[in-house]
C-alpha cells in the first residue's frame, strides 16, 4: 500500500481536484484505492455524492474502538472507495493532542487498510498543524499542487525546508504546477523556467480549465466526462509520471 497525501499550506490551489482525479485514475489502473476526505468542508465527498458525515464524528475515529473500515463508502467507480469528511474534522488537531502520540497516529490508523487497498489518497485541508505533521508521518508521497506565482513558490520553499528540518526523509515531495493559465505572462515564465527549489517539479502541469471547474456541477472525476480534454489528458500523464516516480522511491 502506498499513501499519497495531496497537500499545500495554501488553500484553493487544486488539492481536491487533484486528489479526486488521481484517485480515480489509480483505480482505473487496477489498484484498489481509498480516498480520504480530510477537509471538514467535505469537497471530495461532495464530488463523489457521498454525505460528509461519519458516525461518532472525528472523536470516533480516534477512540480505538471502531475500525476505520466501518466508515468507508463505495463510490460509483470500480476499485474506488471513500472515507467521508465530517465537519468535526475541524477539531482533529485538538483531538489528536488529547488522544496522545499525535504524530504517529495517522500511520497507525491507516495500517489495517493495507490488506484491502493498494493506494490511499489523503485530500488534506489547507494549513499547517499537528494534523499535517501526523499526515506527513503516515504518507509516502506528498503531492503539492502549486500555482505558478511568486508567493506560491515561497510557500513551496517553506514546505521543502520544513521536511528538512523535521527529518522526514521517508517522505517524497512531488510538487507540480496547478491551475496554470498560459495567458498570464508570469505563469508562462515560471512554468517554462522553474526556479530551483530543492525538490524537482513534475514535468506535467495541470492547466487552468473550465472542464475542471465543471466537476462541481457534474460531481464526478473529470476523466469520466471529459477524459480527452487537455486537462483530462494532463491528469493521465501526471498520474503516470507520479506512478513512475513513486515506484522508484
Amino acid at each position: 500500500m502506498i499513501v499519497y497525501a495531496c497537500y499545500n499550506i495554501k488553500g484553493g490551489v487544486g488539492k481536491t481536484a487533484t486528489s479526486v482525479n488521481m484517485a480515480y485514475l489509480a483505480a482505473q489502473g487496477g489498484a484498489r484505492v481509498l480516498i480520504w476526505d480530510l477537509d471538514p468542508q467535505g469537497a471530495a465527498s461532495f464530488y463523489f455524492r457521498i454525505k460528509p458525515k461519519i458516525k461518532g464524528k472525528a472523536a470516533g475515529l480516534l477512540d480505538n474502538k471502531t475500525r476505520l473500515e466501518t466508515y468507508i463508502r463505495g463510490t460509483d467507480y470500480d476499485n474506488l472507495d471513500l472515507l467521508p469528511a465530517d465537519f468535526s474534522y475541524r477539531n482533529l488537531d485538538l483531538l489528536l493532542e488529547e488522544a496522545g502520540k499525535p504524530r504517529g497516529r495517522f500511520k497507525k490508523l491507516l495500517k489495517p487498510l493495507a490488506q484491502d487497498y493498494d493506494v490511499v489518497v489523503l485530500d488534506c485541508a489547507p494549513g499547517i498543524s499537528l494534523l499535517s505533521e501526523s499526515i506527513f508521518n503516515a504518507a509516502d508521497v506528498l503531492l503539492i499542487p502549486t500555482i505558478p506565482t511568486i508567493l506560491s513558490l515561497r510557500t513551496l520553499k517553506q514546505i521543502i525546508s520544513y521536511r528538512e528540518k523535521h527529518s522526514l526523509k521517508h517522505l517524497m515531495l512531488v510538487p507540480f504546477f496547478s491551475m496554470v493559465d498560459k495567458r498570464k505572462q508570469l505563469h508562462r515564465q515560471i512554468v517554462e523556467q522553474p526556479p530551483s527549489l530543492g525538490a524537482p517539479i513534475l514535468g506535467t502541469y495541470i492547466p487552468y480549465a473550465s472542464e475542471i471547474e465543471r466537476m462541481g456541477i457534474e460531481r464526478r472525476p473529470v476523466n469520466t466526462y471529459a477524459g480527452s480534454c487537455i486537462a483530462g489528458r494532463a491528469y493521465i500523464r501526471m498520474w503516470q509520471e507520479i506512478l513512475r516516480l513513486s515506484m522508484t522511491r
Partner: protein
Amino acid sequence: MNKVVELSLPQNIRIDELGNELASHFSLEHDGITSVSRTYLDSFDWRLYRKRLLLFAETSSEGVRLILRSQGQPDTQRVLNIDSIPVFTSDISSFVFRNRLEPVLRIRALIPQLVIQSRVKCLLAVDADNKTLLYIQFENPRLALSNGQYRMLGKRIRLIPVKGYTRPAEQILRYLKKNYKFSLIGKDELDQGLELLNVEPAKYSAKLKYRLKPDMTASEALRTILLKLLEAMKLNEPGVIDDIDTEFLHDFRVAVRKTRSALSQSRHILPDSEVEAFMREFGWMGTVTGPARDMHVYLLKFNGYQAALPEDIRPALVPLREFLVRKKGKEHERLVKGLQSSRYKKLTGAWRQFLDTPQTETKSSAISKKPIKELADKQIWKVYRRVIHEGRNIRADSPDTELHRLRISCKKLRYLIEFFEDLYPRSRIRSLLESLKQLQDVLGDYHDYYIQIIALDHIKKQMSDAAELSIETGEAIDMLMDVLRTEQQDLRKQFKGSFRAFALKKNQANIESIFGQPGKGKKGGKGAA
C-alpha cells in the same frame, strides 16, 4: 448486509416481471440489459485456483473488463478495463494486477478454462444525489461447452450493495424472502460451472499422483508409474503442439526422461528385449524435443542475459533474440512433425499396449514378482551410495566430466525417490529430498552454464554464416559468454558446501535407516520404516 448475495430463483419466475415488480415497489432505476460473456482464466495446471484466486474477463459491447478476486469473496475485487484477453501476465498493463499474478503464474500462460454467457438485466437503487447504493442483477447464465452446446446454470438474482450502504439490500432481501421461494447460492460461478462439467480443477500437476503399496509386485508398481508418465506426456502434448507456453514441453520432456530412467533400471523386471526397443524410441523422443526446448531456455533467459551486460551494450544483443525467435519457430515445426509422425504414434500406441498387458510378466524373471518396496529400498540405497562416493572424489581441480557424472547420478536418485515416495513416510524423506534438490540446483546450474556457453558460441557461428552478425552483436555475445564463465566458476566454489550438507554423517545414518537394510521387510515390508 455489506456482502454480495446471490439467490437462485425458481425456473418459472419471469425475470422481467420480477424486475418490474421490484423496480416499482422500491423505486429502482432500470439500467438496461447487457449481453456478457465471462471467460474464466487460469493456467493449465490451475495455479490461480490452487491459490484461491479467481480471474475472469467479462466481455460486453462496452469492452472487456478483467476481474481479479479471492475465491468466495465477491466483495473486494479488482477491476481493469482491457483491450483483449491476456495470455501472459506480461500482457497486462496494470502494475497491481501483474504484481499479484506474476508470483503465482510465472511463465505459465492463461488459458480459458470456462466460458459463461449471459444477459444481465440491471437495476439500481440510487439516492437523492443520484449516488448508487445498490446494484441488482438478474441473470439466466449458460455454460458454453466446447461442442457448441450449452448447459444452464439456473436463474438468479444478485444483490451487490455498495460498500457502506446496507439498507436497500436488506429491504429488498426481506421482501423477496416474504414473497418468493429461493435458495442462497453461496458458491462461485466457476465452481458451479466446473461441477456441471464434472471437472475437477487442479487435477493436473507436474507432480505425478498415484498410489503405490509396499506389497505391490515390482512389475505392477513399475507399470503404474510408467502409465502415469505416459499420461503426463499425452496431457501435455496438445499444449506442446500449440506452443501455449514453455511448461508444456518442459513437463513433456521430464516425463520422457523419467520414463527412460525408469526403463534403464527395470532390467529383469520388465521383459528385457522389449525394454531395449522402447529405450531406443524414448531416446529418439528426447532428441526430437531437445532443440525446441533449448530455444525456449535461451529465450527465457534472454532478459537475464541482457541485464548481465552494461546498459549501453544491451541493445546489441537484440539481434541474438531475433535469431533465437526464428530458430525457435523452425525447431517447433520440426518438433510438431515429430509428434505427428507415425513413428511417434506407433511408439505411444505400442507403449500403452505394453503397459496395459500384464501377462508379459510371465516372460520375465522372478524379480518382477518381488514386492516393490524391497527393490525400491535396494535401488535407492545403491544410487545414494554412488552419489556419496562420486561426490567425495571430486576435488577443486577435478574435470567437469566428474561433476557431470555426479549430476546424472543425482538425477537418477531424485527420480527414484519421487517414483517411490508413496512407500516412505513423507517426514522421513523430506530432508533428504531438500538437500538433494539443493545439490542438484548447484550441479544443474553449473551444467547449464557449460551448455549455454557452448551453444552461444555455436549460435554466433550460425549467425555469422547467415551474415546476420554485426561486430557489435558479436562482441556483446563474447562479453556475455565471459560473464557466464565467471558465474560458472563462482558456482563451482559452492559445490563443496552443498555436497557437504548433503553428505552429513547424521543424514547418512538417517538414509541408511530408511533404505539401507535389504533383507528386512522382505515379507511385503509393511512394518518397515
